[in-house]
């Protein structure tokens, strides 16, 4: 049996029946990392000794009959989640040697079930980027074609799942950073509702937009992982008190009654956008037909302000980033420039030596947009446009249960293609970032493969706290669409 090909659900089942051990499963993934991660570069930190120790512990728990859903399941974490005693870099030089003294709440939840934390995955520095090329350490390659980016910013997590270096991975999504790399790597990515999953211990980029979520082989695994990750956390004041249903019920619902009674909306503004690859359009058209075949009603809807989402996002996110990243001043943790004998000079040198160009670019945009005299015209206006975008979604969800769109306007681009042109890179987030501005959940499900052999994902978005509909429709779509085999290696 090829243990690395098991989904989380399959591995759980075999572990429970004691047909496999967590140590064997973990070894299978570690072997693959050892063989192939020289090429893919999905991980910043892997500690095989620690992973195997956790696997042994998990096997003991299973032997004692104290097994829980994720006991013994090897999972990768984006290197933005604090892990006690294990270096957490955010793919930045400024945190290259930072060892957290506590675990993020999400990490605690995995540990409480004796999951195996197999490694810390590469990302765009501080989650700023759409290609993982902004990592201060190295570029992650797309397992489908190593000349291409895996997407970003959770590119290491998505590549690790697609390369079968782990059973599932945790990512974060501020403007599409779970969904877009999942789409580019042919795996499932779920951005939960803002507040569904605790952000405690997750290094902040843009606090009103950041959300933690699963990247998995299929929708079933995403539902199981959300079950574990979600729930109210008193340590995060934006964490929602809403009840956590069992999200695998969405799958049972599909099995029982399909998608009958569901209305799916397609925003007319998205259909006429410039710059969408013809193959993405074909994929979207065929996804629509697949869903119609499942008995849904499809309606054209309108999100009148969606054309302004990129502009609003690229003010709001940098404003929040410029405030959040002010803490990396060389005083309490992280890199410090030791040659300055003046405090302000120390701050400046520390940051400019510690942060890469994209991070500095966003700090400057944010500082500018918040500065006296420009605040109203930039941050103020962007926050009003955000309110209009939220209203658009509210109205749209009066007419439909799920909004459909592609995840990205093109399949994964080539490494280096957009590095010099940040604006074009920003525009590639067009379909994903309004979801973050509104705080609603969104899922990316593999929907097709381009003529060049690269996967493309379908995005579904639903009402606040209605991830259940995404699981139900996502699962239905996944079963109906031609099965997408991950690249063999």
């Amino acid at each position, binding site marked *: 049996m090829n243990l690395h090909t098991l989904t989380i659900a399959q591995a759980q089942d075999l572990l429970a029946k004691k047909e496999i051990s967590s140590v064997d499963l973990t070894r299978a993934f570690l072997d693959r990392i050892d063989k192939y991660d020289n090429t893919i570069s999905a991980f910043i930190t892997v500690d095989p000794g620690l992973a195997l120790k956790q696997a042994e512990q998990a096997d003991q728990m299973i032997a004692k009959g104290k097994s829980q859903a994720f006991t013994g399941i090897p999972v990768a974490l984006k290197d933005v989640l604090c892990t006690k005693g294990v270096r957490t870099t955010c793919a930045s030089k400024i945190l290259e040697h930072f*060892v957290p*003294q506590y675990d993020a709440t999400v990490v605690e939840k995995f540990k409480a079930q004796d999951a195996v934390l197999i490694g810390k995955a590469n990302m765009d520095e501080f989650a700023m980027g759409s290609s993982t090329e902004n990592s201060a350490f190295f570029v992650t390659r797309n397992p489908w074609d190593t000349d291409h980016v895996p997407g970003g910013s959770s590119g290491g997590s998505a590549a690790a799942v697609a390369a079968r270096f782990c059973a599932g991975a945790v990512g974060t999504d501020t403007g599409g950073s779970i969904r877009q790399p999942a789409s580019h790597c042919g795996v499932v990515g779920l951005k939960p509702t803002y*507040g569904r999953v605790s952000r405690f211990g997750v290094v902040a980029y843009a606090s*009103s937009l950041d959300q933690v979520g699963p990247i998995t082989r299929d929708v079933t695994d995403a539902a199981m992982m959300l079950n574990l990750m979600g729930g109210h956390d008193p340590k995060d*004041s*934006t964490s*929602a008190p809403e009840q956590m249903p069992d999200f695998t019920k969405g799958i049972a619902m599909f099995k029982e009654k399909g998608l009958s009674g569901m209305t799916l909306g397609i925003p007319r503004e998205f259909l006429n956008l410039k710059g969408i690859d013809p193959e993405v359009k074909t994929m979207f058209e065929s996804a629509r037909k697949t869903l119609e075949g499942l008995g849904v009603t499809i309606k054209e809807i309108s999100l009148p302000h969606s054309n*302004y989402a*990129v*502009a*609003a996002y*690229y*003010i709001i996110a940098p404003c929040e980033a410029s405030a959040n990243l*002010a803490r990396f*001043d*060389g*005083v*309490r*943790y992280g*890199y*410090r420039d*030791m040659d300055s*004998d*003046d*405090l*302000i*000079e*120390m*701050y*400046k*040198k520390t*940051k*400019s030596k510690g942060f890469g160009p994209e991070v*500095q670019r966003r*700090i*400057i*945009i*944010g*500082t*500018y947009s918040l*500065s006296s005299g420009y605040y109203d*015209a*930039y941050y103020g*206006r*962007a*926050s*009003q446009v*955000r*309110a*209009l975008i*939220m209203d658009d979604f509210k109205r749209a969800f009066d007419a439909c249960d799920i909004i459909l769109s592609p995840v990205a306007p093109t399949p994964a681009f080539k490494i280096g293609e957009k590095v010099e*042109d*940040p*604006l074009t890179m*920003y525009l590639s987030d067009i379909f994903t970032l309004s979801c*973050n*501005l*509104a*705080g609603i959940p969104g899922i990316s499900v593999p929907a097709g493969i381009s003529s060049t052999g690269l996967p493309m994902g379908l995005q579904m978005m639903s009402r*606040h706290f209605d991830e259940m509909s995404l699981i139900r429709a996502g699962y239905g779509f996944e079963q109906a669409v031609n099965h997408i085999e991950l690249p063999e290696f």
Partner: protein
Amino acid sequence: MAHLARLDVDDELKETLAGQLSDILDYIDTLKDVNVDGVTPVSGAAFMNNVLREDKQEPSPGPDVTLANAPERDQDFYVVPNVVK
């Protein structure tokens, strides 16, 4: 702006940044086309107000944990360059 942001941007990066930032700001200016009269701005997506917790003492992790990542420390203090000249 770099000074306000407490950055020490070198000349080479300054040049690239200037061009890129002006493209980005031109694009962002499309927001001026939106009619926002009377729209109340939103700053988040959490829809909660005044999240309070009980005001009770919790154990502190102590200086060794708190200062574990300090770039420079002296006993239980962070050391920084001269502030007052």
